[in-house]
């Protein structure tokens, strides 16, 4: 490994800064209040594209000036920013140092690394936590100066109605489980904004790899209340053929990959799905969900690293809702949440207020645009709260204070906050609210009653789909089972057609 000496000069640093400054300007423009977000974003795109075309050129010039050699594999133009950083890094500490003195650097795969005579540890945390992007305050007023995507009446009302639908569906299905009509349920209570605003900001072509608390995406995409009910009751009309526990939805036509209970397994798969979209030049991305707990799984690491290295267009969305069943985030990680994990993988990331519908909508739209335009992954950390129990098998009052739950349920309620904003625009009235709630309630109750009476999938579905066709061992077992049923009909549920 060759080590090269290079002359460090303020002139060079200045030169680099000049070359790199468009990037800084972009950030400034990004937050300039005079632009709508999309405009700001477009200019960012233009500039960023301009920038990304040039780095090799820039790097070559820099390299010539600095007169050091490097590995071919180190041709990472993206490192230009790091070069600028490295070169003026010591300025503050070494003001009196001769600007023309000589520092050592190593040309290492990934880019030039300068040597330092000091043992300098990177801090385990920053002084300030990464800020959280927010548009609406708790009372639903836009925060002065906040940049957000303009939402028209139709979209705003549809988002709000969908959130209400999700909430009512959750309440009634939860009660149905309590009455023993379905075997299990998980609500999305408190996380309606992440569900719905994310769905609204995506394209229907984007492929969703859900964890299990994202039914709102399906709802937005047109999965009907009857379809939800059929899955939860495992009826013959469940597209999953009654094989999985309730809330394990899946819908090919809605680009929603069927839920699997294991955590974070979806993340590396998302990288593969996204890579295929990239190879097929699709104007779509993969969107993979995880919770705060899921970030601890090995698959989280695998998924993010693969997406970064393969430059796969994946939008990773972490619903950091504070609790993984009973495990608080303080027992889950010691980093500043999840958002900071992106950088270690070379993935751009953003932290957003997951209970702010407009913030989620704006951030996901911007993130999706970048993912698709740049064909690279992005990590979004949405701060939210699991207002409900983990599932119907859980009683969360055993491990978390009631007032904490109550606070998030009321003061930080995402529906209430968004409703205030929508109503202030004159797009929604109390009468419409009452009417909507009544009609959704009726629709859900009706769907449940119908599903409850609908027979289960026929018994042959026990054996199909294990493989593309029935192998001989399963043919044999099907035959043997059918003989058992003839002899002992009373042992088997009557609502499964034979």
């Amino acid at each position: 490994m060759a080590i090269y000496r290079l002359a460090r000069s303020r002139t060079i640093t200045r030169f680099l800064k000049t070359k790199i400054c468009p990037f800084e300007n972009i950030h400034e423009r990004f937050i300039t209040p005079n632009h709508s977000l999309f405009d700001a974003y477009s200019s960012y795109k233009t500039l960023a594209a301009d920038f990304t075309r040039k780095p090799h050129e820039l790097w070559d010039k820099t390299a010539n000036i600095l007169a050091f050699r490097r590995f071919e594999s180190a041709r990472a133009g993206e490192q230009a920013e790091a070069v600028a950083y490295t070169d003026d890094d010591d300025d503050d500490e070494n003001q009196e140092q001769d600007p023309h003195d000589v520092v050592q650097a190593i040309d290492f795969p990934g880019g030039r690394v300068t040597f330092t005579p000091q043992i300098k540890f990177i801090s385990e945390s920053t002084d300030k936590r990464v800020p959280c992007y927010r548009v609406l305050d708790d009372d639903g007023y836009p925060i002065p100066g906040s940049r957000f995507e303009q939402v028209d009446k139709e979209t705003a009302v549809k988002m709000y109605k969908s959130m209400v639908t999700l909430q009512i569906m959750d309440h009634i299905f939860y009660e149905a489980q309590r009455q023993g009509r379905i075997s299990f349920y998980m609500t999305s209570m408190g996380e309606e904004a992440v569900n719905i605003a994310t769905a609204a900001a995506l394209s229907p072509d984007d492929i969703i790899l859900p964890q299990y608390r994202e039914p709102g995406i399906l709802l937005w995409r047109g999965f009907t209340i009857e379809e939800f009910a059929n899955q939860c009751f495992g009826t013959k009309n469940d597209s999953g053929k009654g094989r999985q526990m309730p809330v394990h939805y899946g819908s090919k036509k809605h680009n929603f990959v069927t839920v699997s209970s294991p955590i974070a397994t979806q993340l590396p798969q998302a990288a593969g799905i996204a890579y295929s979209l990239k190879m097929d030049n699709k104007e779509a991305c993969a969107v993979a969900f995880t919770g705060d707990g899921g970030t601890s799984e090995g698959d989280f690491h695998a998924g993010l690293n693969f997406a970064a290295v393969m430059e796969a267009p994946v939008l990773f969305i972490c619903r950091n809702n504070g609790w993984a069943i009973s495990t608080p985030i303080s027992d889950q990680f010691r980093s500043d949440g999840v958002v900071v994990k992106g950088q270690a993988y070379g993935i751009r990331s953003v932290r957003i207020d997951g209970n702010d519908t407009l913030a989620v909508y704006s951030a996901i739209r911007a993130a999706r645009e970048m993912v698709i335009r740049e064909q690279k992954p992005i990590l979004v950390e949405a701060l939210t709260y699991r207002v409900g129990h983990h599932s119907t098998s859980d009683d969360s009052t055993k491990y978390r204070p009631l007032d904490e739950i109550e606070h998030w349920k009321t003061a930080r309620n995402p529906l209430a906050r968004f409703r205030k904003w929508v109503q202030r625009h004159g797009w929604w009235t109390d009468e419409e609210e009452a009417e909507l709630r009544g009609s959704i309630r009726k629709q859900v109750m009706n769907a449940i009653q119908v599903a409850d009476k609908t027979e289960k999938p026929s018994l042959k579905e026990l054996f199909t789909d294990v493989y593309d066709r029935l192998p001989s061992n399963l043919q044999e077992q099907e035959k043997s089972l059918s003989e058992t049923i003839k002899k002992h009909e009373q042992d088997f549920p009557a609502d499964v057609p034979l």
Partner: protein
Amino acid sequence: MASSLRRVGRLGASINGGGRCLSGLSTGNEVLKSPQESGISKPINLFSAINQALHIALETDPRAYVFGEDVGFGGVFRCTTGLADRFGKRRVFNTPLCEQGIVGFAIGLAAMGNRAIAEIQFADYIFPAFDQIVNEAAKFRYRSGNQFNCGGLTIRAPYGAVGHGGHYHSQSPEAFFCHVPGIKVVIPRSPQQAKGLLLSSIRDPNPVVFFEPKWLYRLAVEEVPEKDYMLPLSEAEVIREGSDITLVGWGAQLSVMEQACVEAEKDGISCELIDLKTLIPWDKETVEASVNKTGRLLVSHEAPVTGGFGAEIAASIVERCFLRLEAPVSRVCGLDTPFPLVFEPFYLPTKNKILDAIKSTVNY
């Protein structure tokens, strides 16, 4: 579903009330650490028996640790209730949600001479830790020429059907682990067994995977001595004597098999029922002796029949008792499908499936 729940519940009660089969204590099998003849016993369920064992393990060994997902507040099945309060959060703690991390951490802890009692929340979720178990825990001693070992490691995981668990809360993955030299696999059938076998597993100088029948956590209730006792590993137990056919099983399936034995008796068939308890290394001699007596063998487990541990038992017994066998070895097991939700009653090796197999084997 509800009817199967009740069925198992009744059976649990009848087994317990019978006082015949469940207590290795009364049949002299005990290698009790401190075998007091009349220790205080109380009727408790299986999760409470596990909980008692964990209290004793932590109390008797200051180098014992209990950890896993949600363990701090008592665990999703309440098995770790009260442990963190009593022994402190440095010995009983929540881990991040990462099975490979839990087992890898546990191996490291055990390698330093500690008793690492790790919980995997459901056996269905043990697979991210498969590498750590198969390539690391199982070979730690062997690959180092016995310079290192992680014998203090015990991995607890609830397994098996529960009536509504679907694909990912129902599986019985014991056979995967039975294919791995270097670890032991133990599965208890009742509260009293669970306590004694878990304490033996924790104190055994080899890594043990201990699967707990989650359907029985609340349903199975029996008298469990409050004292510290251990039940021997790798010793099967004849829990019902008979002369016409030998039935071999483990865990929750034994209660279903017991019902089939009772039914068969009404038809004049005398069944011998054996609880294997430890799947590897398993007690071939007890099974062999029984089959030499009865001339017939039936094995039953919830896991899919193909490649299940029943296949290993069948092959070994055919090797040892070929000339004595009067019928092919019968296997009544789960189907070769993923564990289904709605179709669970069809998938499972039910009492009547076993009864039919008993009859056809005896009448072969």
